[in-house]
């Protein structure tokens, strides 16, 4: 059973349709990516999931039940536009945010302290937020997102503005939280950033879902059968080759095969030609490339 189910969501503002009949299904304990350029409608979709906005039509089901504001404790949401009260102390601020999400005073304190210890910032409790560097504030923001042990963690452009250390920290925390049972929903326009994290994705463009599926399968589906071959020695003449050559240099060769060509056949042909193969690699399309191939026919309408 899916953990999060969006069914035919529609949302319009004035005359623009921000979300146009989008359905999304996220399985439990998966890392799901919602990808698309700025203005595609991702943030609107997230605001509908978190009950900040109500859809014009369509339903949101979370863990088998309809979503509403009283169930927001199940969700930990880090918006793209995120910030903190600058004048508050770190401890006070985290306590406030944790309690708003429904934790009791003692629960909140215990959880916050353990997170602060994990991030090595246990002595920041009495520091004012405005005294912290941006990277430090990002840690506080992440703690405030996950402190109440949400079952669904929604991260909107999580890596924008993050320094490399925090990026790695948050990435590893995401894997850990997933292992502990959380489902994670990513939203970003920087597709290359989430390619290796997400297991499943949906491509959103102009309010519509244009594509969805398992990342690995999508790459297989959209691959162009291009292989990159590293070799040493002299180049053969490629008579009767089962592929065409895209480019070649002293050490590297790019070739284009067809869908019914077995990679083994290519390899054995090259070996038969007397080449010494150092590397053999199929070039899979990036999510970005897939997105462009999917979107251009729509844009050209």
């Amino acid at each position, binding site marked *: 059973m899916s953990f999060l189910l969006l069914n035919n969501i529609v949302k319009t503002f004035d005359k623009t349709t921000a979300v146009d009949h989008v359905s999304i299904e996220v399985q439990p304990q998966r890392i799901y990516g919602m990808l698309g350029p700025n203005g595609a409608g991702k943030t609107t979709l997230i605001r509908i999931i978190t009950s900040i906005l109500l859809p014009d039509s369509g339903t949101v089901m979370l863990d088998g039940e309809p979503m509403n504001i009283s169930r927001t404790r199940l969700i930990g949401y880090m*918006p793209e536009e995120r*910030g903190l009260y*600058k004048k508050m102390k770190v401890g006070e601020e985290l306590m406030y*945010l944790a309690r708003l999400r429904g934790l009791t005073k003692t629960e909140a304190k215990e959880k916050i302290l353990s997170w602060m210890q994990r991030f090595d910032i246990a002595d920041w409790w009495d520091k004012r937020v405005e005294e912290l560097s941006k990277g430090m504030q990002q840690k506080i923001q992440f703690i405030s997102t996950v402190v109440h042990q949400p079952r669904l963690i929604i991260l909107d452009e999580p890596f924008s503005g993050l320094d490399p250390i925090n990026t790695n920290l948050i990435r590893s925390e995401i894997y850990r939280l997933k292992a502990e049972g959380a489902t994670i929903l990513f939203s970003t326009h920087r597709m290359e950033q989430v390619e290796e994290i997400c297991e499943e994705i949906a491509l959103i463009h102009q309010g519509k879902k244009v594509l969805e599926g398992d990342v690995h399968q999508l790459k297989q589906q959209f691959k162009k059968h291009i292989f990159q071959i590293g070799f040493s020695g002299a180049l053969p003449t490629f008579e009767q080759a089962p592929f065409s050559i895209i480019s070649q240099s002293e050490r590297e060769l790019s070739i284009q095969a067809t869908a019914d060509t077995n990679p083994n056949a290519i390899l054995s042909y090259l070996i038969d030609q007397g080449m010494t193969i150092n590397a053999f690699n199929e070039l899979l399309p990036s999510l970005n490339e897939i997105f462009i191939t999917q979107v251009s026919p729509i844009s050209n309408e």
Partner: protein
Amino acid sequence: MNKILLIIAREYLTRVKKRSFLITTILAPIGMMLLFAMQIFILLLDTGDVKKIMVKDDSGLFSHTTVSGQKKIRDLGNMQFTLAEGDLEKLSAQYREKQMDGLLYIPNNHYHDNQKSSFELQYISDQPLGITNVSIINRKLSKEIRNARLQAAEIDQELLQRLDKIKINILERAVDGKEVNSGLAFGFGMGVGFLMYFIIIVYGTMVMKGVMEEKTNRIVEVILSSVRPFQLMLGKIIGIGAVGITQFVIWIFLALILYTGMGLLLAGYLPNPEALSGSPMMGASPAQNIDVEEMQFKMQMVLDRIGSFNLPLLIGVFIFYFLGGYLLYAALFAAVGSAVGDDSSDSQALVFPITIPIMLSFFIMMYVVNQPNSPLAFWSSIFPLSSPLIMPALMPFSPPWWQLLLSMVMLIIGFMFTTALAAKIYRTGILMWGKKITLREMLKWAMR
């Protein structure tokens, strides 16, 4: 419900715990009190430089002749006088040698001529005489001229003093026998109206700034994933309202301390009119005594009249309109705060439609305390945007109870209306960044 309490607590505590709250609430009034006390103190201990002045009195008005035939002159204020005779030219060259500060020349100038009303004296010195000394000499001489002329006209001095004491008090009575006092009601109404104006502007702006802070800080979306926008808006309005109430309670407390303190201070000085007038010489004159008595009499009258107001009703009405007016306008200020983007300079244009009714009400209030029975007074005390300023100001004039009741009901309806309106604008505006929002758009959101 629990969440709204959390929001109220945060809004309240973060403000009350701030250093600036302590400064504006406690230190500023104390500082003002000290400044005021210091002024009184300086006045009481007036230690101006003593001026030694040589007087050539040709008129004989300034000096008097004793029984033994000696001419004498009394010192005035900080001035010590020495009589001198002789040529003016010579004297003006001499005064410095005799260690005097200056020479006062009072020519004999037909002071007894009733047609003449302005006279000139000369003061010769290299230092100015000073405004206080000028007025003391002026007063002394006027009085002497007056007395001399009255004597010449053979008017009894005692009768004159009695004539000076005539006072007229108009006791106004309403038909139902309630006593009113236009002057006092006017003052009281103005004071309360001004206070309401101040409260709405100051705390309304505080709400607006708070909303803008959340929006520009980008924390608002995090919070809105846990609470409804309406809860956040209402929590902020109530929390800041509680800050205002706290501030007022502290001020009332300080005022009570001040009142008792001043009472003790005055009790120590008032029976001694010389201390109040600052100079033993001036205090000795009968005119000064009358002033002090009159002041005490007036004070007593004011206190009696305040006692004649229905104080519990006045305070109750004030609290009602304080809360109602604050809630009504705070919601509107919150709506504007939510619509203002990162550039707070846009806020000016959007705040204007709110400040106009407040300022207008203030001007109407100033008119209404003079004309408490005018149609304008009636309608503006009913209309919810102006009633928070007008109705408390009208209370000392004992408006009919049904007018008060109607005004209160209208204010409750008005407050619910503006809050609903503001909530709609707030809900849309608070999550809108990077776009300049016009008044028309705000109205469109409100009507949706």
